């Protein structure tokens, strides 16, 4: 059952998946080229700054992969008004779990490409001896980031009706609590506080704003 769901999702996304995988393989090399070429000398600080600045490419690619893999099967079901999916003899929640897991598995291909590209790029680049390479770490971060964006996109697509209202009300509720809590506690910067907590560990958005370092001390 799951194998067939995985097969169909692979078939729908295989062209994009090929493009994502090539992109994922080439990005680490491109980043290192930019980092090294842009420098007048091989100073450690300059190189790290350049690598960190180019890290946004990974976030961008992770988002493209994640949204691509999440949207494809949804559009396929939506085009049929979900009639086929709903007529299958399994609970809707199980079907959605299969859909989700299949996409999570497809994300492995660009992740492996990121690892291989990063490993190859760091092996072939001239790196100051005080620095270390982290191809595996960058690949894991890439996968987790993609998975997080994929999960959010997946959830937003499939929630409907009363569930959508609940999610929107939940988000509004959190914002209201932050605003009111900030006023009660005399905090003028409650929104800044919320943003900081979302984007620093263990906040869920930390992975988007953190430094994506293929090379670090």
């Amino acid at each position, binding site marked *: *059952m799951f*194998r*067939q*769901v995985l*097969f*169909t999702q692979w*078939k*729908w996304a295989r062209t994009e998946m090929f493009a994502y995988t090539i992109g994922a393989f080439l990005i680490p090399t491109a980043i290192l080229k930019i980092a090294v070429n842009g420098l007048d000398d091989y100073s450690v600080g300059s190189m790290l700054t350049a690598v960190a600045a180019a890290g946004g490419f990974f976030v961008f690619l992770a988002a493209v992969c994640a949204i691509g893999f999440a949207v494809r099967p949804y559009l*396929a079901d939506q*085009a*049929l008004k*979900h*009639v*086929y999916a*709903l*007529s*299958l*003899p*399994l*609970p809707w929640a199980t079907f959605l779990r299969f859909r989700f897991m299949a996409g999570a598995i497809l994300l492995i291909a660009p992740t492996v490409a990121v690892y291989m590209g990063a490993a190859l790029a760091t092996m072939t680049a001239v790196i100051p001896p005080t620095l270390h390479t982290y191809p595996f770490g960058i690949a894991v971060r890439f996968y987790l980031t993609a998975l997080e964006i994929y999960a959010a996109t997946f959830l937003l697509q499939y929630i409907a009706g009363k569930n959508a209202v609940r999610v929107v009300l939940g988000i509004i509720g959190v914002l209201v609590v932050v605003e009111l809590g900030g006023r009660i506690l005399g905090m003028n910067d409650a929104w800044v506080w919320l943003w900081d907590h979302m984007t620093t560990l263990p906040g869920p958005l930390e992975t988007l704003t953190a430094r994506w370092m293929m090379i670090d001390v």
Partner: protein
Amino acid sequence: MSDAISARNVAYRAGKEFAIRDLAMTVPTGSVYGFLGPNGSGKTTTLRLLLGMLPADDGAITVLGHDVPVGVHKALAKIGYVPERLHLYPTLTVEEIMRYHASFYPDWDNVRAENLRRGFSLRAEQPIERLSKGESGKLMMLLALAHNPELLVLDEPTDGLDPVVRRDVLSALLEYVSMRGATVLISSHLIHEQERICDHVGVMDGGRLVAEMPMTTFRGGIKRLRVAKGPVDRGDFPFTLLSRGNTAGREEEWVVRGWQSAMREYFQTGDSELREVIDLDLEESFVELLRSARTPAGIAAEDN
């Protein structure tokens, strides 16, 4: 024997314009139940409610002994469903959709599926998006029949098909039903087609099930009467008066339901005279039933 489908007091509202109201429907096990109704009467919505694809606002539905929607996925494993429109992923091939579909059904019969595919002249490697309307209809029937379903729910399965394809699809259906003794709930506009294959009939109009009865009762029970000097309606007719209108002279034309020949005696009292009793075919019966259901008096009569 229990009923294959039972719905009680089911209500469903879709926007402001359309609603299913007080739906009470019984499909006996082993029957071929024809589901008639004009466009927009609520047939497809009702079928989707019965299969748990839409959540009923009120009422109780049981399909093959399972409550809907709680246990609907257990029932769906024993149901073959053909929807109104092609509902299959267009980029998959015939072979791929057969494999995909089979993986969800424990009773999928590969040999039967392959025989049906050959019998329907469907090429395994043909993408679904390139199938003709007739081929799509055949493929959906194949998928509905290949897992040995106890119940077939068919929503306009032959609509838009040419006569040859229609015959192929109906033959496959009837062959399966006679072999397996399966229950069939078939919605169609093609009344004469229903007349040939159905033994029960339900008529939907404006979101209400306005009649439900064995086909023999439906076919034989609605008559057109030519009556001279028709008696005043005192509410004691032994039949259900669906409509009453004047023709030439003093003769009236009545359309009645539940007619039996012994009821002739009713017209022998007073001045009235029953001149002729005319059999209606299923299509005429259907039209007369709908006409009566659309008048307040008619609906009241049906409710009683």
